[in-house]
């Protein structure tokens, strides 16, 4: 198996694990963790394609990853703030209890 294939399979598995976690977990923090895994799988893809993929402008993949890591950090900060906001109101971060809005 070529290194590129190995990387793609690994990132595919990572993405699936993250998606499963994000969909199945009831703890808001763990859902956040699942989303992080999905984003990191995408970052891995960029690095793999940059290293082994078709020749292109140098460093595009790496620069994309650096930016996306920064965005991910900002996203986590906002996410944790929202988790804290909901914890203030319902004294738990279980998503099953966030059922005020429905119809």
């Amino acid at each position: 198996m070529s290194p590129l294939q190995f990387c793609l399979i690994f990132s595919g598995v990572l993405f699936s694990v993250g998606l499963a976690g994000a969909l199945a977990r009831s703890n808001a923090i763990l859902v956040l963790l699942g989303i992080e895994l999905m984003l990191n799988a995408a970052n891995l893809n960029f690095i793999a394609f940059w290293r082994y993929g078709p020749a292109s402008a140098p460093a595009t993949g790496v620069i994309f990853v650096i930016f996306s890591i920064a965005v991910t950090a900002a996203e986590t900060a906002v996410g944790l703030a929202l988790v804290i906001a909901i914890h203030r109101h319902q004294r738990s971060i279980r998503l099953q209890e966030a059922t005020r809005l429905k119809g």
Partner: protein
Amino acid sequence: MTPDYAGLFSALRPEISLVLGALLVLGLDLTLYRRHSPGGRLQLALWVGSLALLTAGFQVWRAEPGTVFGGVLIIDQLAMASRLGVLGLTLLTFGITQGSPARRQPAEYVAIMLLAASGLLLMAAAQQLLLAFLALELASLSLYVLAGFDRTRPESAEAGLKYFLFGGMAAAFLLFGFSLVYGATGSVELTEIARQIAAQGSNPLLVVGLVMVLVAFGFKVAAAPFHLWAPDVYQGAPAPSAALIASASKLAGFTLFTRLLWPAFGAAAGSATWLNSGAGWFRAVAALAAVSLVLGNVAALAQTSLRRLLAYSAIAHAGALLLGVLAVGSAGPGPLFYYALTYGLATVGAFGVIAVMETAGRCERITDLAGLHRRSPLLAGCLAIFILSLAGIPPLAGFFGKLTVFSAALHAGGIRSPAGGLAVLAIALSAVALYYYLMVLKQALVAGPADGAPPIKVPRAATLALVTAAALIVWFGMNPSALLGLF
């Protein structure tokens, strides 16, 4: 290529003035206005913010068309028009912010709105995957915060968290899709991607990447089956935030979506007849449009909450807008832009009415609108225009938007093509939609007020915003060429 930083700077002047405006709002609030009343601080923040928006609008107006920084940004008619549209819708949102309950952090609220607007401006002009991702995230992160901004209400926190969790997942799908597109074509520039796709044809990597991008955009524009966040967010978020999420964010989202699909992935749309296109994205978008139209219109029938009704009607309108995206290939972006902008105006207006009513009392259920024509004739009149425009009654802009999008879709492939069939479906479902829109109007215009319901006093800024939105809807409905002639 030598980077052209001067060109980049001059192209980004609108965004720069928005960010400076946001900093100025925060700075003034923390220093000079620290001891003022919340009402005074909100006034100041809104004035400074409006000034920043107007400056940005002037600079968008003056911008020279062309590509910037080696094709990272493109300033064309569509970019310019939707940038102006985003700024105008944000300005209207500022107008209705006045009417909502005074917040504890007025300056932060306005500053985050300005940051969201600058993200949306970048989305409207992005022509490269990295910039598209960054702009989308800047706008989305600001919108998550805006949705969860009201700390006194648990509903707002819940709306923010739900929006964030769905949005985060969509961002992951988008990034993964972009990475596969990058892998398949070796570039992040849309023009280069288009050339590669035309040269090498479809490949599995590209198809998977494209599907993931479609999922992410389906979320962003609240198309079924990725619409689950929309009703909750529309219901729980503060009214001005919901107005921004429903209008400006949708307009910029559709602009970016169109730019990704047609110029970049145009070659992967599927064959010209669309009947035997197994791999093209055309079928996927058509399916999203059909599901959104049916689900949005049918689910809206059962709603008792006004905001949830608007949310499901937004899903239905997203379906019609996706139909407009399909028609871009043959009719250009004109019909899509016209529909998105006039829909945004009507939605901002409807949420503006909700915001004013919430200041005066409560406005959760549709029956809370009862007797609005006695309590405030102005609000009732404006609401009638917005709702009738959403329903598509001539001579309002909503009618002409539907007409131009549906006729573009029918022209594209005739009535037997999938797009033509979708147009017929959308026309039939418009009749269904008329029922729930008229239910709202019946409460507002016919039913008598509840006992002891006092008259509603409409703040001046909200009056101005609502009347402007209503006047624009009537005017664009009478003169559709004012917008369609741009393209």
